């Protein structure tokens, strides 16, 4: 571990309100947190920085009692504490405003703010009057002129966010965690949020601010802490650090050759996308893809990569743009058209969008290829079985019988079923969205190996990934997207962790045409 900037908080008299000390959290096959530390101080904003998968969300869940750490200690005012349930964390004054705010549309603002801990009158019933008065008071304190009596569904996104903040403050909060609070906000709303953060600081609250956006971090944070791959990398005061140093810390691993990228013969152009745009999600996407090539799509979560891919395969309609396969224009209006054109998409959420667990393996595998094994709408079982067997064997899928329901298989095998399903359509282009997200190292290597093999066999691969080592290790070329636009296309010597992150977060550096 390289501690480039581990200068710990200067003033010893200024003790942290809340500290995480050597916290470890392991999930089956994944070490999400590995001995991390984090210190939050009263009246200060600490920014938690890290790539996707660095362990930020796990820390939030540990702090709020949703996860229990396997090792290490949480300290409140210097005393060890445990948060066995979210309620315990709330009672201790630790409260979080989550990425996706959890609120109830059909309840009033006051009911949302006080749900679970509503003030009671002497008969033990909810004291509506007191609840409304207190809610109004909190809303006023954060400068939000919202009527406590109206239903949440009648509010806009920004106001809902303020209600979520009011809810966080309704318990006597000492520590406020904001998990990417600006992700869904417009520029003016963000300004209002900054003002609110300043008010909370003035009230002496310790704030943990999680964000990807560097301008935001430098604007609002007093301190920073950087995590990488579940490990603590460094911490310090914001005004003593440069952007470039933070980027270094975020990505600064030696990029090991974990990746079995084999040499593949790169052939003729297979796919050409010109001017692909969508009214709200992405704009002007242009690229070509050759036979045997692996094209990486990098960007932060929410950069519009998956949205673009879903449009490319006909789930959503683009407002304009042309797709050519082997030089021929293809009109893709539905996933069936895309499959016909030879483009298949293996979605990120394989649980929800991949396998059909109540169906046997062979039926899952043949689902998109049924037209090949049927005549006039009638399925030929022998052909269907043969097709399923061919592709499951190619992937070395181990199951008692192809008649086994997919739900009975392990996660890794379910994934093989999903991939077999797509290969059975004999595609020209396969789009893999976060192909190794949430799987252990061993399975990752297998997926990478397999991806190489596909490319070597002449398939063109588009890989959407938020993991820099994977992008660098596997891609022949990389397109970086930010806020729905293609920022840059990189290859060869231009590819480095720093350039990727710089383009993805949108830092302009001199000598670099961003």
């Amino acid at each position, binding site marked *: 571990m390289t501690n480039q900037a581990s200068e710990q908080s200067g003033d010893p008299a200024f003790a942290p309100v809340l500290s995480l000390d050597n916290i470890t959290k392991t*999930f089956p096959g994944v070490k999400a947190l590995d001995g991390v530390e984090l210190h939050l101080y009263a009246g200060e904003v600490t920014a938690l920085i890290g790539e996707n998968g660095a362990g930020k969300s*796990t820390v939030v869940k540990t702090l709020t009692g949703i996860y229990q750490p396997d090792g290490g200690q949480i300290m409140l005012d210097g005393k060890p504490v445990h948060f066995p349930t979210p309620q315990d964390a709330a009672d201790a004054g630790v409260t979080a405003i989550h990425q996706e705010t959890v609120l109830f549309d059909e309840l009033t603002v006051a009911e949302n703010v006080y749900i679970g801990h509503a003030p009671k009158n002497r008969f033990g019933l909810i004291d509506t009057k007191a609840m409304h008065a207190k809610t109004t008071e909190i809303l006023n304190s954060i400068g939000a002129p919202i009527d406590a009596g109206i239903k949440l569904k009648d509010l806009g996104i920004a106001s809902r966010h303020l209600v979520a903040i009011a809810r966080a403050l309704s318990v006597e909060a000492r520590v406020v965690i904001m998990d990417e609070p600006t992700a869904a906000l417009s520029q003016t709303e963000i300004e209002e949020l900054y003002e609110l953060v300043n008010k909370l600081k003035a009230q002496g609250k310790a704030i943990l601010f999680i964000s990807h956006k560097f301008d935001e971090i430098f604007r609002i944070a007093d301190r920073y802490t950087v995590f990488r791959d579940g490990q603590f990398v460094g911490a310090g005061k914001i005004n003593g650090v440069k952007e470039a140093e933070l980027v270094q810390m975020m990505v600064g691993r030696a990029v090991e050759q974990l990746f079995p990228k084999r040499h593949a013969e790169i052939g003729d152009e297979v796919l050409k996308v010109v001017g692909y745009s969508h009214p709200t999600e992405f704009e002007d996407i242009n690229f070509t893809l050759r036979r045997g090539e692996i094209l990486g799509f990098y960007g932060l979560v929410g950069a519009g990569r998956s949205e673009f891919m879903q449009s490319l395969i006909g789930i959503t309609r683009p407002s304009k743009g042309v797709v050519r396969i082997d030089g021929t224009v293809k009109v893709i209006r539905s996933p*069936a058209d895309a499959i016909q054109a030879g483009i298949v998409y293996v979605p990120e959420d394989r649980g929800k969008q991949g396998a*059909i667990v*109540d169906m046997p393996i062979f*039926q899952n595998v043949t689902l998109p290829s049924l037209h090949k094994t*049927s005549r006039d*709408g009638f*399925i030929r079982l022998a052909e269907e079985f043969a097709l399923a067997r061919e592709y499951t064997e190619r992937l070395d899928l181990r199951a008692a019988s192809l008649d086994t329901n997919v739900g009975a298989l392990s996660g890794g095998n379910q994934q093989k079923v999903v991939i077999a399903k797509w290969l059975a359509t004999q595609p020209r282009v396969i789009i893999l969205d976060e192909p190794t997200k949430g*799987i252990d190292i061993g399975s990752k290597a297998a997926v990478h190996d397999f991806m190489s093999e596909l490319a070597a066999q002449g398939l063109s691969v588009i890989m959407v990934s938020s993991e820099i080592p994977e992008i660098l290790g596997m891609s022949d070329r990389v397109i970086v997207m930010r806020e729905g636009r293609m920022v840059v296309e990189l290859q060869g010597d231009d590819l480095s962790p720093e350039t990727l992150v710089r383009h993805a977060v949108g830092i302009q550096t001199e000598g670099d045409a961003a």
Partner: protein
Amino acid sequence: MTHLKSRETILFGAILCLLLVVATRFPGFVAPENLIAVFTDTSPLIILALGQMAVILTRCIDLSVAANLALTGMVCAMINVAAPDLPVGVILTVALAIGAMLGAINGILVWKLNIPPIVVTLGTMTIFRGIIFLLTEGKWINAHEMSPQFTGFPRSDVLGMPVLGWIAVLVSVVMLVVMARTTLGRSIYAVGGNPHAAVYTGIDVGKTQFAAFVISGMLAGLTGYLWVARYSVAYVDIAGGFELDVVAACVIGGVSIAGGAGTVVGTLLGALFLGVVKNALPVVDISPFWQLAISGAAIIIAVAFNAQSGRSKGRVILKSAEHAQ
């Protein structure tokens, strides 16, 4: 699959037990000719339940089947009154077509307007009954107004079983083939099992649900003629509330209300179970109220079974959610 098969075995066992218990008190009940009579009596329920199964498998529900039956039956009866010499084949075709059309209305509303199926079919259920009233001003069409060939068809005997029973057999076989061996059947399971995944594999979810509603409507229309002919009477309220028996038959037969799981054989057994209960209890002198209680208990037991098999699925999802962290 293994779950379903064991459930079907259990259901089959339950039906046999029921028959055995009844046989000890009243041996005549299990005589072949009586069993055939029970099967024939259950045939409308079987036909409707098989259509309903297709709909429920796609995560929808069709509450309008009984109203569709009544409306189509009434139209068939009116055609018969107007043109008594029209051959039964034409009447059957008309019944299938009208039923399919009414089902298509449900399907279009679900597919194109994205209205929840329970709301759509609750609406069309009332509308269909209302249309019967508009057509007839509440008047009945009675036996003497219908032609003998019209009323005689479902009752005519072929190889020891009335045509009505044979039609249930035929529909079962056709549905067995459709569900197991056609791309439509496979799509129906896929849409109910995981609509998101189905979209990515190129299946049009709405269109598949539409097709299921058409199947259900078509079978309801067919049953409409058979019902009116068999009982030789048509009026606004025939088969009132029968949609609930139909849904019950599916649920008892192991069709998951959450969609994606259920079989033709299971549904058939579910309908037969209800049919045997309905026919056996009066014979052994048990009050009809018990009949309701037994069907009710059977539904709850069946749903509990479904919940059990669904539970492990929930665990897997949670685990993968944890992994995704």
